[in-house]
C-alpha cells in the first residue's frame, strides 16, 4: 500500500540538484510513497523574495499552498525535498495560522488569482521527516539489499530543516538524530559530527564569498577529521556549497580537501541496490566513486565495538570523571 503525498520539487531540483530529484524518484516506490507534483507550482522565493516584499512573499508561497490544496483529494501532506522550499511553505502556513490579519491579507491577494488557502489545512513537511517518521527506520531497513557497510558518513542537516522547526517535527534544533538513525538503518557508519547543523553559507557564496569559504572549510574539515568518507546532505543549497564550492574554497585557502557530498536519497538508493547512474551519482564535483569504494560486504567489527562502548551510567547525568593517576 502506498501513501499519496503532494509534492513540491522546487526550482533547484529542476536542474542544479537534478540528481536529488532523480534519486527521490528512484526510491519513492520502495518507500511506499506516491508523489503527486503540485501542478504549475512557482518558486518559493528562497530567502530573497521576503527580503524585498514582505506580504507578496507570503502570497507567492501561498499560491503553491492553494494549488496543492486544490489537488489534495484526501491527501493532507505537502512534502518538499529542499530545505528552503520546505521552510518557506511551512512558515507561511504557520504565520497565516498565527496571524489572522496576515491570513486575511494573503487570501485577499490570492483572490486576485481566483485562489484561496485555509491555513492549517495542509501539513508541510520535509522529505526526511516523512521518511524517518512516517515510513520509519524499520521499513527502510527492510528494503536494504546492499548495506553501506564500511562507509563512514557525516550526517549534515544544515539549518532550515531543523530550525526554527515551526511544527515541532525534530528532537533537537542543533543536535538532531533522525538522519543519523536513518543512515545506520542503511548499514553506514555514522561519524560524530558536531557541526551537523552549522551553516553552509547559504547565498553568501555569491554575495560574500570569503564568509562562505570559511564556513565551508569548517564543515569539510570537520567531516575529514571525523574520518568521514562522504557528507550526506538534504538540501540543494548545502550540496551546491559543500560540493561545487569546495573547489573554490580549496583554491582560496590553498587547501586540498576532497570530501564528496551526496543526498540522503542517493545513499538510500545505493543501499536499496539501485544503480548509481539512476541516482544521479556522477554529477557531483568532488567524485564520490573513491568514497563509495569503501563499501564492504560484511559489517566491520570495529564499528560495532565502538558503538557498544558508548554507554552511559544509569545513575545520573553523564559527568566528567577524574581518574587517579597511577604512580
Amino acid at each position: 500500500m502506498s501513501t499519496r503525498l503532494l509534492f513540491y520539487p522546487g526550482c533547484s531540483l529542476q536542474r542544479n540538484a537534478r540528481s536529488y530529484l532523480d534519486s527521490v524518484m528512484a526510491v519513492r516506490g520502495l518507500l511506499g510513497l506516491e508523489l503527486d507534483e503540485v501542478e504549475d507550482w512557482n518558486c518559493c522565493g528562497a530567502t530573497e523574495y521576503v527580503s524585498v516584499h514582505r506580504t507578496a512573499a507570503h502570497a507567492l508561497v501561498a499560491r503553491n499552498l492553494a494549488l496543492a490544496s486544490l489537488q489534495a483529494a484526501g491527501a493532507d501532506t505537502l512534502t518538499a525535498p529542499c530545505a528552503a522550499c520546505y521552510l518557506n511553505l511551512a512558515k507561511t502556513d504557520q504565520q497565516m495560522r498565527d496571524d489572522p490579519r496576515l491570513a486575511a491579507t494573503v487570501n485577499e491577494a490570492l483572490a486576485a488569482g481566483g485562489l484561496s488557502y485555509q491555513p492549517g489545512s495542509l501539513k508541510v513537511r520535509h522529505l526526511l521527516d516523512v521518511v524517518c517518521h512516517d515510513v520509519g527506520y524499520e521499513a527502510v531497513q527492510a528494503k536494504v539489499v546492499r548495506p553501506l557497510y564500511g562507509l563512514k558518513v557525516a550526517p549534515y542537516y544544515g539549518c532550515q530543516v531543523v530550525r526554527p522547526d515551526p511544527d515541532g517535527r525534530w528532537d533537537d534544533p542543533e543536535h538532531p538524530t533522525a538522519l543519523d538513525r536513518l543512515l545506520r538503518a542503511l548499514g553506514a557508519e555514522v561519524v560524530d559530527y558536531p557541526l551537523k547543523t552549522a551553516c553552509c553559507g547559504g547565498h553568501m557564496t555569491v554575495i560574500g564569498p570569503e564568509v562562505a569559504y570559511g564556513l565551508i572549510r569548517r564543515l569539510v574539515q570537520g567531516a575529514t577529521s571525523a574520518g568521514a568518507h562522504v557528507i550526506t546532505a538534504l538540501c540543494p543549497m548545502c550540496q551546491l556549497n559543500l560540493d561545487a564550492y569546495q573547489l573554490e574554497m580549496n583554491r582560496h585557502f590553498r587547501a586540498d580537501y576532497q570530501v564528496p557530498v551526496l543526498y540522503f536519497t542517493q545513499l538510500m538508493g545505493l543501499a536499496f541496490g539501485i544503480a548509481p547512474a539512476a541516482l544521479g551519482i556522477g554529477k557531483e564535483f568532488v567524485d564520490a566513486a573513491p568514497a563509495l569504494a569503501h563499501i564492504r560486504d560484511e559489517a566491520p567489527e570495529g564499528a560495532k565495538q565502538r558503538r557498544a562502548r558508548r554507554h552511559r551510567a544509569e545513575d545520573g547525568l553523564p559527568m566528567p570523571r577524574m581518574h587517579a593517576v597511577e604512580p
Partner: protein
Amino acid sequence: MSEVTAPTGPAVAPLPASPTFLEEVMAATPGHCRLNTCIQCGSCGGSCPAGPEMDHTPRQLFAMIRAGMVDEVLRSNTSWFCISCYFCTVRCPQQIHITDVMYTLKSMAIARGLYREHTPSHFSLTFVDYVEQYGRSFELGLATRFNLRHYPLSLPSLAPMGLGMLKRGRLEFTPRRIESMEQLSRILERAKALEASA
C-alpha cells in the same frame, strides 16, 4: 485689573503619538515577534556565523532600533549578512523571531532606498526580477547578471565552475516559465498594493 484666566477652548484629545521605530518594525513582522522583550544578552551575535562581518551585532542593532536610530539601522549591513540559519532564533532566551526581524529590516531598507546599491540587496532584487518574470528562479541568469555587475573581474575564475555545472547537466541556458504567469502576477500585484495601503 482684569483677571488672568487660563485660555479655554474645546477639549483637545492628545495627538496619537506616531509609532516608534520599534513599534513599526514589530508591526511589519508577522505574528508577535517579541522584539520589545530583548534583554541585550548577546546570544544572537555569539551564535551568528556571519557575526564578525557585520557592522553591528544583532544585539547592538536591536538597541539601536529601540533608540529610534532609523537611518543607522537601515544602512547597516547587519540584516544583509543574515544567512537565515536561525541559530539566534532558537537560542534567544526571549524567543524573539530574530531572523524574521532581519527580513523586515531588509525590506524596509529597500523600500526607503537606503541600501539599494549594495551587493546583497541587488542579489535579492535580481532574484525577485526573475521570479516575477518567469515564476521560477533562473540560476544561470541570476549568477551572470549579478556577477557581471558586482564581480566582473571574478567571472574568468568562475568560468570553470560554470563549465563544470554545464558538463554535469546542472545548468540550463533558458529559464522555465510557469503556465499561469498572469495569475501569479495579479496575486503579487494585489499583495503589494495591500501592503502599501496598510
